């Protein structure tokens, strides 16, 4: 029964998405009120049926209904309830349905808020409808989560144990909120082109969606990196894996888009460019989905891939990107309509921001796709790993960070560079002190780390200066914190990355119970290894006593878990953190009566994720001020005066 309800709901959602597309686009004409009403109604219905379909799959998973193939393949009765729920999006079919659910949410928000007026909203809903229809066809024909299995098995096959983790459970919904949020920006950009209202209005209408997408991508990437750190068991936080790159590229472009749209809104500058970025951002989301889902790139965590699906997504990709670009070429703003500003101005700063961010995104794309093309043309294989990105991506991002403090301190159209430099002088002082302090105190000596700390000090101090300059801290509006927090977060993350990669200590030993090993200032004693029974796994748990200067400071218990259903072993690391430094211990294979223990001390590692959280807070501050009633009224007044 559940399967049929889900199936039917998906079919109805498809029908309504087609209505939404047709009526929405028809509503883009002037005086097409009826079409617009129909589009809004269809979007609401579409939302209801997608929620119903998603609910049906969740219900089937929670009740372990193994007559549904997808549930039988990916669930198990012994799986804890939370992972029965989050396991819904742990596999390909379910994650595509989640994609659809997020799209439906954004469409509902569009209907509810009607930002940018009825006509623009209608056209945007039309575009969302087209995207929804394409994805629903994809789900129904290549990735149907409601296919039946007859006879149903008594037990399911279980879920990849790596995914049975709270951090990773929240990772896909975050990322998809980001990916699909960019579809809303894309829809508004396309709507602006369709209605020829391609001035500042669409950018203002789409900004909350861009912000939501950016916040979600920031949090999604941060969560993913944190998960990789504690779950994969070798203490790394970023691997330049194709799947990670697939999330990083839209983030870089979304960041560029937020900055460029700011100029478009305020002065009408870069109108074409902002439209193009909105199209590019979502295109990269689609490319990311394609890369992850098609199996074109085999990577550590591409757990559900299939070339046939890849061909469909590729076709969709070409239609969406090609269609949008053709629309842009046909209807885009004329070049002569550009804005006027002096070389020293906020516009120029934002332009440079965009040059570096898009070059950085393109570099990641180049490095990610190069092995595919190399293989296609030469028949040989090539790896593009972390050293490549350290040489190419890092310098571009460093150049960007050097310039970051200037943007907020320059005024529109014409700015005073000397005044800005004078104001930022204390930040330069902080950078110099940070650089000297690192060179003098930290060992081993590292010029690169000293430079990174100087850069981080420069960015963070400049954010503080920017806040002070905006007025009395007690009366500052929340929006004033947005850029300061987002920029400072970058500095905090940079500190974490630099410190961890430069001063990490690592040790790998094979210990018998009673033996000890040394890592940084700690001595680790293996007191014993016991067997523990979990809900759906059996674990070897090592009791590791941590001592420093002869005093016992903690006992930690890294585990090696065997999931009998899935036939896989994963290590559950033990991390003892002070907030400033992590002691990280992973239990490896057994060797006779001895155990392999991998231990790391990662100084300042938590800063990597603190920084991500601070950036997201900055985004939230901006979103909050945009959604606040007072801010809306002020914006409306501003529009009235234009």
């Amino acid at each position, binding site marked *: 029964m559940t399967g049929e309800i889900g199936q039917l709901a998906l079919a109805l959602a498809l029908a309504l998405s087609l209505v939404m597309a047709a009526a929405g686009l028809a509503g883009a004409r002037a005086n097409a009120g009826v079409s617009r009403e129909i589009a809004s109604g269809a979007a609401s219905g579409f939302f209801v049926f997608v929620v119903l379909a998603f609910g049906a799959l969740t219900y089937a998973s929670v009740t372990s209904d193994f007559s549904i193939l997808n549930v039988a393949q990916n669930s198990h009765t012994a799986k804890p309830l939370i992972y029965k729920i989050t396991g819904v999006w742990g596999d390909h079919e379910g994650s595509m349905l989640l994609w659809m659910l997020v799209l439906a949410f954004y469409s509902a928000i569009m209907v509810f808020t009607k930002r940018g007026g009825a006509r623009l909203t209608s056209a945007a809903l039309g575009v969302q409808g087209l995207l929804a229809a394409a994805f629903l066809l994809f789900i129904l024909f290549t990735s149907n989560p409601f296919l039946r299995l007859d006879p149903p098995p008594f037990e399911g096959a279980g879920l990849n144990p790596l995914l049975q983790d709270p951090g990773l459970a929240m990772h896909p919904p975050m990322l998809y909120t980001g990916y699909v949020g960019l579809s809303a920006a894309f829809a508004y950009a396309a709507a602006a082109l369709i209605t020829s209202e391609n001035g500042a209005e669409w950018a203002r209408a789409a900004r909350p969606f861009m912000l939501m997408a950016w916040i979600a991508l920031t949090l999604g990437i941060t969560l993913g990196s944190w998960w990789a750190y504690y779950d*994969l068991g*070798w203490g*790394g936080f970023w*691997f330049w*894996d*194709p799947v990670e790159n697939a999330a990083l590229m839209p983030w870089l472009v979304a960041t560029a888009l937020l900055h460029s749209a700011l100029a478009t809104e305020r002065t009408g*500058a*870069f109108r074409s460019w902002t439209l193009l970025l909105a199209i590019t951002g979502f295109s990269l989301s689609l490319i990311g989905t394609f890369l992850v889902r098609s199996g074109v*790139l*085999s*990577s*550590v*965590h591409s757990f559900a891939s299939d070339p046939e699906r890849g061909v469909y997504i590729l076709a969709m990709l070409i239609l969406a990107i090609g269609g949008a670009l053709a629309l842009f070429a046909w209807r885009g703003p004329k070049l002569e309509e*550009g*804005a*006027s*500003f*002096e*070389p020293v101005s906020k*516009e*120029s700063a934002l*332009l*440079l921001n*965009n*040059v*570096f961010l*898009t*070059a950085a995104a*393109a*570099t990641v794309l*180049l*490095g990610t796709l*190069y092995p595919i093309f*190399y293989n296609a*043309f*030469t028949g*040989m*294989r*090539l*790896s*593009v*790993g*972390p*050293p*490549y990105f350290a*040489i*190419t*991506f890092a310098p*571009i991002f460093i*150049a960007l960070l050097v310039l970051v403090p200037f943007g907020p301190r320059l005024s529109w*159209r*014409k700015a005073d560079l000397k005044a800005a430099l004078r104001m930022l002088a204390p930040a330069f002082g902080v950078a110099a002190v940070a650089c000297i302090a690192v060179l003098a105190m930290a060992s081993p000596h590292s010029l690169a780390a000293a430079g990174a700390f100087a850069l981080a000090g420069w960015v963070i101090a400049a954010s503080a200066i920017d806040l002070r300059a905006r007025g009395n801290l007690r009366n500052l509006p929340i929006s004033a914190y947005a850029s300061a927090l987002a920029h400072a977060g970058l500095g905090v993350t940079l500190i974490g990355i630099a410190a961890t990669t430069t001063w990490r200590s690592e040790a*790998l030993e*094979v210990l018998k119970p009673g033996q000890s090993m040394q890592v940084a200032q700690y001595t680790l004693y293996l007191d014993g290894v016991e067997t523990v029974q979990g809900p759906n796994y059996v674990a070897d748990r090592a009791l590791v006593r941590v001592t420093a200067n002869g005093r016992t400071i903690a006992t930690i218990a890294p585990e090696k878990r065997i999931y009998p259903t899935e036939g896989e072993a994963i290590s559950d690391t033990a991390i003892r953190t002070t907030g400033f430094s992590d002691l990280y211990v992973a239990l*490896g*294979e057994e*060797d006779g009566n001895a155990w392999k223990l991998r231990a790391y001390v990662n100084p300042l590692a938590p800063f990597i994720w603190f920084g991500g959280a601070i950036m997201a807070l900055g985004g939230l501050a901006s979103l909050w001020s945009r959604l606040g009633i007072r801010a809306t009224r002020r914006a409306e007044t501003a529009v009235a005066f234009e």
Partner: protein
Amino acid sequence: MMRAGVIAFLSLFVASAAFANYDKLSDPALEARAVALQKELRCLVCQGESLDESNAPLAADLRRLIRARIAAGDSDDRVKAFLVSRYGDVILMKPPLMPATWLLWFGPLGLVLIGGGAAWLVISRARKRALRENS
């Protein structure tokens, strides 16, 4: 060809059985070199991971092979060259610079230069417009 390579290199381990169950060199300097090397090399069966991180049996074999070659007095470059001759460039985390990778290595710089040039054009036009409006 590939299979012959695998067999050839597996036969090496008969000689280096001393490293088979405990894969650490007694000389810390040599061990440090081995660890550094295995971070630059890719695990061939698990793509995203380096030899340093992988739990795959092949990666463990390669870790032992690296130590055997280092203990035998090979330089880092010779160990890498040996592995590349066996497995191809795919084993290197850092792609080599050759005509087929010029685009990969110089592309990013080209992108920044093109972007910078475009920005310069946009800014000079905006300035001309500003001058016209002011006059």
